[in-house]
């Protein structure tokens, strides 16, 4: 199958690679760029485990054809930590025990990140709405909501 060239920016770095025409953004992040923090959950946009920020908006990477990202900027969970330190939102998740098995955590944090970028002072209802596309099968939602609210309230 012929490959197509894709040039975009991932976590601040310009990336150029060749991808099959039907590859998803998730395929490229995980398999080509080895950014496996972004999880493959359902593969059909139901669970939010593959949430990443695409040009400032949270999306399910499994539903975005990679070639739609030509020239775009993508932020994944790996792009949040800075200088060897976790992003304060990540730290808030740790501090609140908002992690059980951890599989949903990267997607939850990216969705929460997008929510807080758009609305720095969300109510509890806003947080629930912001995370409505993200499933936690450990059902640890209470602590996740608390973690996001604590960060919104000025950091944990």
């Amino acid at each position: 199958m012929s490959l197509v060239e894709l040039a975009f920016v991932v976590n601040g770095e310009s990336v150029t690679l060749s991808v099959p025409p039907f590859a998803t953004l998730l395929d490229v992040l995980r398999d080509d760029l080895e950014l496996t923090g972004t999880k493959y959950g359902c593969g059909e946009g139901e669970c939010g485990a593959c949430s990443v920020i695409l040009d400032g908006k949270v999306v399910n990477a499994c539903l975005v054809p990679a070639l739609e990202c030509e020239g775009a900027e993508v932020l994944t969970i790996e792009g949040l930590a800075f200088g060897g330190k976790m992003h304060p939102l990540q730290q808030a998740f740790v501090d609140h025990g908002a992690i059980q098995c951890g599989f949903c955590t990267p997607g939850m944090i990216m969705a929460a990140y997008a929510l807080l970028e758009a609305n720095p002072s969300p109510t509890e209802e806003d947080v629930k709405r912001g995370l409505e596309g993200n499933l936690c099968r450990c059902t640890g939602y209470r602590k996740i909501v608390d973690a996001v609210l604590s960060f919104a309230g000025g950091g944990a």
Partner: protein
Amino acid sequence: MPLEQSDRYLAPHTVQEATQDAAGQGAAVLAGGTDLLPRWSKGVVKQPDALVSLKDVEGINGIARINGEVRVGALATMSEIASDPIIRDAAPVLANAAGRIACPQVRNRATIGGNLCNASPAADTAVPLILLDAVLDIAAWNGSSLTAREVPVTKFFKGPGATVLAPGELLTHIRFKPLAAGAYAAWDKFGTRPAMEIAVASVGVAVRLDGGTIVHARVGYGSVAPVPMRGRKAEVALMDRPLSAETIERCQAAARDEIAPITDVRASEGYRRDVVAVMLGRLLRNVES
């Protein structure tokens, strides 16, 4: 390293190029992709021969007021529609429905054109557009020039997953007049949770009263017929009457009678009739208060 251009992923820049590409054998038109990709991601349905991406096509995005009408580009996303000041002013019922589809991740990608062309009986934007008497602009390439036709939203759907679009025809815009001053329009859907839910049923109603009498009525339903459906009998039950408890009951009975729901994994036929009647009653009683 120059790469061979793929004939399986096409990224036209104009409506004309897009209609020509879309006319190709086995081509699938890609807007937001949120309905399209899950079809083949599990390998149940085979991938189309080619994807025609609309992302670079000029002139079919954005939301504008033109000649007294609201014109929504087919590529406008649900997030854009939900927050757009023109839509929130001229047709808040559409903004409400767009904002309640799925979840933020999907709303940021899913487009109104895709929602309509996917032709789900549960398409959440279809019922508000029925209330607004929306018209759809369709472009096609006839071999020598670009042609245009318009189709009322009520005539666009042919069945589950089927529309009047011929291969190579492209939905470019959705147009409607702003709600008349004093008109009331509302929409609601019912499911087991507020998010990520394909509606068990959805109902919309638009009415305008003059001197206590209903002088304009539109009713629409989703998930209760093979296509999103206009409730003509329910409208007749409302027209030229006061918005009384008796009128609401007549309207509910007409709705229960005219819808054609099926029993499926999400609800039974009878339950859907009940839910539609209850939701319609709630929407109409909200008009009074």
